[in-house]
């Protein structure tokens, strides 16, 4: 063996030694479970010492005919359809307001971002009180401005999802505001100066400079938010528990209940694969879109 080969082997070993501590943990606790989830989705298993039984695509067929699954799927879609666009618009507006050189910017930024890092359990508890139908401050306010029968929010099958959506928007928008702020820093001030000389007002600058130049960021934010919406669980578990009835039951609720309440692990994994496919599709769209934007920008 030449000394060059020896050096190469030694280099390899040193390289492996750096990644090994993380790689071992990662392989056992993340990579293998990810692979295992594919296997489990075509099995029937109650999680006990009983052996798994191969059932092919039976779990997926069951999902299609399961009304609870269909409802949780539709609820998740509904949640995303409202949450994503409103959060995008709200966070963009906040960022535009904050992208000025004025005093106290840090204080405003902090207060907008703060909901994002507060735990969902505490946040859910306080919002449930704010939404309390008889005595809660929100309905008090609605009655004060003349709405005689305000919604019963988290205890009503019709309005519970709306309550969850409102809290989600409130919680997420500070995060995406920061993403937008970072993107706004990249827009050259010369563009705005030129527009000012041409006599453009604030609205026109927003409409014809800011929003078009932020298109790649908006696209990114939409994809991130969509994925985040499909993963929602904690907030709903804390605020409504998926109820009343099945009105706020979402995909992850369904996975959780199938696995940890009904001990139907194979079936739960099949539902998880559906979630995975959705996230995968969104991610692929994002990759495609990023390439397109790079080309045209």
């Amino acid at each position, binding site marked *: 063996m030449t000394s060059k080969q020896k050096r190469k082997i030694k*280099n390899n070993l*040193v*390289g*492996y*030694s*750096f*990644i090994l*501590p*993380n*790689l071992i*943990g*990662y392989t056992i606790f*993340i990579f*293998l*479970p990810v692979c295992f*989830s594919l296997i489990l989705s075509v099995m029937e298993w109650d*999680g006990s010492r009983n052996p798994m039984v191969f059932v092919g695509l039976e779990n997926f067929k069951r999902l299609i005919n399961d009304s609870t699954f269909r409802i949780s799927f539709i609820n998740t879609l509904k949640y995303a359809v409202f949450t994503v666009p409103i959060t995008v618009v709200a966070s963009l507006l*906040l960022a535009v*307001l*904050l992208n000025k050189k*004025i005093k106290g910017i840090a*204080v*405003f930024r902090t*207060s907008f*971002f703060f*909901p994002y*890092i*507060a*735990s*969902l*359990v*505490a*946040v859910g*508890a*306080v919002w449930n*009180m*704010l939404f309390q139908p008889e005595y809660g*401050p929100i309905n008090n306010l609605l009655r004060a401005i003349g709405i005689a029968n305000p919604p019963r929010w988290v205890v009503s099958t019709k309005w519970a999802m709306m309550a969850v959506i409102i809290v989600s928007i409130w919680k997420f928008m500070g995060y995406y505001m920061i*993403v*937008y702020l*970072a*993107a706004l820093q990249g827009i050259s001030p010369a563009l705005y100066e030129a527009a000012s000389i041409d006599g453009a007002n604030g609205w026109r600058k927003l409409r014809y400079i800011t929003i078009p130049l932020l298109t*790649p*960021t908006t*696209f*990114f*934010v939409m994809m*991130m938010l969509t994925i985040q919406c499909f993963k929602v*669980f*904690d907030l709903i*578990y804390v605020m409504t528990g998926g109820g009343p009835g099945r009105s706020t039951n979402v995909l*992850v609720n369904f*996975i*959780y209940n199938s696995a940890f309440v009904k001990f139907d*692990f194979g079936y739960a*994994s099949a539902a998880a*694969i559906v*979630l*995975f496919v959705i996230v*995968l599709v969104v991610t692929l769209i994002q990759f495609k879109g990023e390439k397109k934007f790079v080309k045209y920008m």
Partner: protein
Amino acid sequence: MKTNKSIGRIILYILLIAASILMLIPFYWMVISSLKLNKDVFSIPMKWIPDAFHFENYQIIWKKLPLLDFFKNTTKLTVITTIIQLFTSCFAAYGFAKMKFAGRNLIFLIYVTTIAVPWQVYMVPQFTMMSRFGLTNSHLGLILLQSFSAFGVFLIRQFYISIPEELCEAARIDGLSEYGIFAKIVFPLGKSAMATLVIFTFVNVWNDFMGPLIYLDSTNLKTIQLGIRMFISQYGADYAWVMAASVCSLIPVVIIFIFCQRYFVEGVAASGIKG
């Protein structure tokens, strides 16, 4: 022209102040409710400033449930997870960023791909595996499953890549081993990336609800988030106490946030800038 500008400025301030009040009102409500008597939380007309401040709520809650144990458990989980995550991520990031070895790119590609897989997709098989290992209903199990995220490695690696290769090359010529270069040059340079990782890990683990919900059964092992849930289910009508416990659960995160806000903002901005 000048008055026009200052009017615009005043409108901007009014908008910003209105928006901040809207964002912060739930927290204000949480704090004032925690200082009221249970029966007065929903009193009508609503009081935005309580008549009397009942600080004793903050003493009572610790006797109602073992909240102190919950705090200790959460602190233990958070600190240990953050430390393991930080060190193994930095180590691996150096390997991926500064070393050449067979299979490096393939392994890194697998890491990056799994970042996109949400935990909710593999939490069920992960749980069944952990229960085979006898690691469910234990802190060790939760620590192990949260300590090795691919995201941490990715974040630090991106930073290490930006460190000029010449710096490491010069150190190699001076006879420093790879471990020496890592310990003496690259690791100390990565402070800001590490701060971002530490803060995000800390807040994620502290606020985590679903992990402990699935893994921890025994009351003596539970975390503060589960504790607040217990509080709500057992003392649901004692609104002031629930709010006092919620305020306590937020305090550590608030402190971290106030002192390290810069890193939060940098971390979020970095995640979005590529988009």
